[in-house]
């Protein structure tokens, strides 16, 4: 391994990680400086819905594709989201495995698994890019940051895919690019929309707390019933399984 690659795998990553952690701490501090609105309203809705249940439901909603109409009606999109983020976990994990635990890669199945995850995520990234740039609505809501973040991740996945075997047999450039991209990504993330995961616990916590208090979360599903199909001009009405709340 060249000195440059060693630097990219270790010092560079550590500095980038440290920078990211620092910026994130400042970011969380900045965020929590905004006082949270206090809720005085008495609880409403069925007794089975409480703020606590609402919060748990709200945090978990992302893993319950049946719970929200937007994921229920677009299961494929939801699956893309899951696979894309599994790719994120794999590619980030890889940036720790290669420098600190390279022996893990020797375990049977690890390399193909990581390659499937990052490869799939890369393909989904391309699909997402087509969706983002191709659709009128998506284009209208996209900023350069949205496009760049997606592009960055998609290319990063491609290099992660190639970096997985941790081999320099065909030269070091794949590994080198992967680690430099990882470092760039770590530094860039706090300033981009990718930092959404930092806010996710908060936004969903507050929404869940309020909705739980008001008897809206959790949606309790009883018998799913088919919606009438063929409602002209209103595609969203077709094939919607209605939420059936079960009274406490």
């Amino acid at each position: 391994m060249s000195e440059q690659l060693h630097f990219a795998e270790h010092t560079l990553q550590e500095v980038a990680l440290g920078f990211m952690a620092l910026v994130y701490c400042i970011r969380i501090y900045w965020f929590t400086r905004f006082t949270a609105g206090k809720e005085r309203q008495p609880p409403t809705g069925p007794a089975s819905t409480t703020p606590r249940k609402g919060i748990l439901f709200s945090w978990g909603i992302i893993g319950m594709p049946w719970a929200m109409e937007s994921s229920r009606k677009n299961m494929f999109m939801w699956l893309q989201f899951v696979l894309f983020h599994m790719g994120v976990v794999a590619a980030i994990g890889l940036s720790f495995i290669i420098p600190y635990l390279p022996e893990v890669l020797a375990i049977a199945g690890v390399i193909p698994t990581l390659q499937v995850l990052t490869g799939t995520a890369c393909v989904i990234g391309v699909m997402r890019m087509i969706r983002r740039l191709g659709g009128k609505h998506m284009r209208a809501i996209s900023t350069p940051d949205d496009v760049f973040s997606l592009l960055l991740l998609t290319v990063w996945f491609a290099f992660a895919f190639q970096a997985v075997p941790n081999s320099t047999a065909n030269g070091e450039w794949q590994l080198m690019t992967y680690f430099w991209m990882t470092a760039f990504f770590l530094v860039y993330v706090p300033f981009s929309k990718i930092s959404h995961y930092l806010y996710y616990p908060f936004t969903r916590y507050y929404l869940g707390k309020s909705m739980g208090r008001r008897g809206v979360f959790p949606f309790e599903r009883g018998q799913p019933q088919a919606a009438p199909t063929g409602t002209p001009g209103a595609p969203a009405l077709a094939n919607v399984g209605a939420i059936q709340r079960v009274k406490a």
Partner: protein
Amino acid sequence: MERSYKAQKVIDRLGQKLNRQVVGSLVACVHCGNCTDSCHYVLANPDDPTYAPAWKGDRLRKIFKKHFDWTGRVVPWWVGAKSPETDADLEELKDIVFGKCTNCRRCTMNCPMGVDFATFNRLTRGLLVHVGIMPEGVAVVSKDQWELGNQMGVLKEDYIDTVEWMSDELVDEVGDDKAAIPIDKSDVEVMYTINPREAKYDPRTISDAAKIFWAAGESYTMPSEGWDMTNFGLFSGDDELGGTVSRRVYEKAQALRAKKVVISECGHGYRSTLCEGANWAQFDVDFVMESSVQTMLRYIKEGKIKVDKSLNISSYTYHDSCNFARSCGMTEEPRELLNLVVSDFREMYPNRAENYCCTGGGGAMSMTEYTPQRLKSARVKADQLKATGAKVVVTSCHNCVDGLTDLIKHYGLDMEVTQLVNLVANSLLVEKAAEVPEAEHAVSTTLAFAGRTILVVDDEADARRFIATVLEDNGATVLQAVDGDEALQMMRDKKPDLVTLDLSMPGKDGGRVFEEIRNDSELSGARVCIITGKPELRRLIYERPVREPEGYINKPIQEDVLVSNLRRILELTNKAA
């Protein structure tokens, strides 16, 4: 270019209004577009991305990023950050936050990140209202609620008169003096609060509720003040108004030492009074509050009232009000109650927290400049209603009653709208109803306007024909005039008992005609009911230096609203005479 004063104020005010929940919603959006299809405006305008919730949300997000977030301050174009610079920018923002969103919260429910767009859309409305930028209708209604304590400009005397009128009618109907509606009685179990629409357009819901309270033997009162449980602050984003209005209700309940406040069927009223009001008013409420839906359901379950569902013979579906269901979790009680009072109930899909807005929410009915786009988006709801095959749509919200009635008319659906209170009252079995004397029977079966002459003034032939037909069906002799001069002449010649006067007419508009009537010694005593498609024009009438009209009705006109209002004018002014 220097930033306008108002634009700067909006930015400053945003800084004061930001709380953690709102900031979270502003920073967390990943622009994934998952919420796009959840909005009824998008479904009705599939080619126009400016209806997408995330696009609309970005209008405030841009300002936030430019002034309060990091990247946006340094490289604004990279994250789409931008300041409003001119008053025209604010006007444009107004048309989006008021005209392209009913704050129904359906997109909120469909956002994986928990971005609550509807809440910060409300906040944006509030920022604009703060600098006086709002649709005319919002200004009028807010002013009424600030000044008169209710959002429909009902004067205290008119409110009391209406309650007393309904009280008399109920006593006559059931033949029991105990059915009289108490006003300002202290130490009661229940203080009953209503939507001013009931006093103004639909007094039958007041007498229906009173009939139920009477049948249940409830100790209740209606307050003389703090009776309006609706709150335009929810729609205008004005927390100060919101707090003031809800405080009026809370303080009145405390003054009367009522143990419970019952909120009549109204989605936004329920949400404002029960949920948001305490936050806006910073008020810790020490009494119970509930919806009249819960009250009626409890009466039936506890055997306090008995109902016979065979008395409601049509087919019914239920429309969940956004505020009632999606923001307050009130989804099962209305269905349970409905199933107790009707036999043929048909669910609507999607429903409960996933239901589509009636499209009249968020104060949309008062913003006439956006009516065409509102009615266009209403196609989604119309399709939903049609698919149920029901003849009657029941809803627990007065706002929805208006929104649904309007869209039903617009899309030519063969449906009616009603509320649970009407169905419960209609199915009520009153065991010991006293004998009603023959003479009173005779009165109640007489046509409402028998022996009356009413002059209908409107330049639109369709409107004239509609009003005239309804009035003639109810026994009136109807005269018609197409413009102000003809109207004045007819009034002199025929001396009608009542005049319905359209405001927007070519030539001499209704406002001028009205002023001439009042200033004419021969005509000044005439009873006049203003009819207008533009509620904001009402101010032009009420601010004239002449005696107010006896009533006003907004277009589109509903038959029963027309009849009950004109009846009210004739009967109350008779009494006063």
